[in-house]
């Protein structure tokens, strides 16, 4: 069951980890303007925190045309009987599925779930399909750990020389490449 609720009664959670780029937000606004609210906003009943639909609520609250069109109300589907960590998990699951999640915030949620609820690597694999490597990265979140800098020994220095081939120790220069393809 859903109901229409004044957007002022809903809260944007501090752990919100989604992000919609401005151009995509404009597309969303245009869609709401043209076709109305086609899917409900998901809200945690005990806390009034929005689990899914933060951007739609922002638009209805801040965009004059949309506020007038919907009379400041959004269609809400309440989720009750769950804890805040459960709400966080549901939020990540819904957004991770769509591929729109802010890594910095996700890292905070993962650390908070680990410390507050004692979730294990298997739990993270089950609820977020998160590999052990990804989990480790989210828990530590620093490049130093990621690159295993403390285990690294300084390289040997070199100078350029003009010499016949084969007369000096051979080692081809390794040019650094980005870790992923262009995107």
């Amino acid at each position, binding site marked *: 069951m859903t109901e229409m609720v004044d957007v002022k009664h809903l809260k944007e959670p501090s752990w919100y980890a989604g992000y919609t780029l401005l151009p995509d937000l404009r597309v969303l606004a245009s869609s709401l303007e043209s076709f109305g609210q086609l899917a409900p906003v998901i809200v945690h009943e005990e806390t009034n925190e929005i689990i899914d639909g933060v951007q739609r609520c922002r638009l209805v609250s801040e965009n004059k045309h949309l506020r007038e069109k919907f009379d400041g109300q959004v269609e809400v589907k309440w989720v009750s009987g769950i804890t805040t960590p459960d709400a966080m998990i549901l939020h990540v699951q819904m957004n991770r599925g769509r591929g729109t999640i802010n890594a910095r915030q996700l890292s905070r949620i993962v650390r908070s779930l680990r410390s507050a609820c004692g979730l294990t690597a298997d739990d993270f694999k089950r609820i977020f399909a998160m590999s052990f490597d990804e989990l480790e990265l989210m828990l530590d979140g620093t490049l130093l750990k990621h690159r295993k800098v403390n285990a690294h020994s300084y390289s040997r220095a070199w100078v350029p020389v003009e*010499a016949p081939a084969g007369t000096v120790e051979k080692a081809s220069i390794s040019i650094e490449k980005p870790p992923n393809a262009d995107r």
Partner: protein
Amino acid sequence: MTRQRMFLDVNVLEAARARIRHVYDTFDTVCVQFSGGKDSTAVLYLAKEVHEERGLGPVKVIFRDEEMLSPATVSYVEMVRDFDWVDMEWYCLPYGAEIWVLGRRQTTILWGDRRREEGRWVRDMPPGAITGYHFGLDHSKNLPQPLDYYQMQGKKGSVAFITGVRAAESMVRYRSLVQKLHENYIVHPYGLSKSVPLKFAKPIYDWNVNDVFKFISEEHGAPYCEYYDLAALTGSNTRVGIPLHATAIRRIGDVVATEPEFYDRLYECFPQIDAQRRWWPDFDVEKLIDDYAQDGWDGVSEFISTYIIGPSKTRRAKSFAAEFRKKHIADPYSYPINYLIRNLMLSELARGKSVSPVGPKTRADTQRKRELSND
């Protein structure tokens, strides 16, 4: 005889410390050219070591603010500026920067008057910045002299700017570092008049990324720009700098993944970049090059008029094409037309860029060999 690397019996840290001491022994004024990135952070701390050893007071630092800096980089540079052992000159000078979108190139003036009037500066100019006005120049057009010329004004005697350039960053940088045999890491800036007594010193030229982070974190326990942790979290490239030029914008997804709010601000200032974000993965560069190349010199002219925007960039592209044409007439296989279009579309079209033949083992070289075998 070939140019090769001879490995020494010292590690890169010991060698860099010896090189930077040599720079301080040799030049009257030494400044660290800082960008907020990991490499210039490493040279900053190497310079700090020398200043402490010799009681030289604060390290002179030059920061060239390129306006389109990510929030993480700006906060890090501000933090470094406020260190009591740092004496930073913060420059916001007007010069041309490229916006490259799906092959179309145009230039904008960083900190330019027109964009300021339109409210399209990516961020506010920091208070106390050294601007073009300090040199009697307005911000409506590009600087008449190279940037280094302005940054070395007021410095006494012979001047060295220490940079974090490393050979492993690219083949071009590697080649630049093996060109000289004596003091290979001390060079005169490209394009600057020889009468200007300025040199670049590159003491960490032989370091790799892990050497850099090990030095920063273990020798000094120093902070580094938060961007690198965001890059690790999102599997992005570890480079800070202007994100919209021909090479960097191909990785605009890294900006979206690491600092989406920064992408939004860039989009507000340069709305055309969103086409790059949406379509680059599906954009067929090779087909576009072939389409124009098959029309010969007419195709080249049409490419320039369609894809190069603005009078100065168009002039530069036409002059490059004219130079290329002369070489093509003498040696069409080393200077094929599709290679010209590739250059016009993808390479940096710097002032005075010289025309070079197709390099071995490049994509253009493979295509050329295929055509030769078909003949």
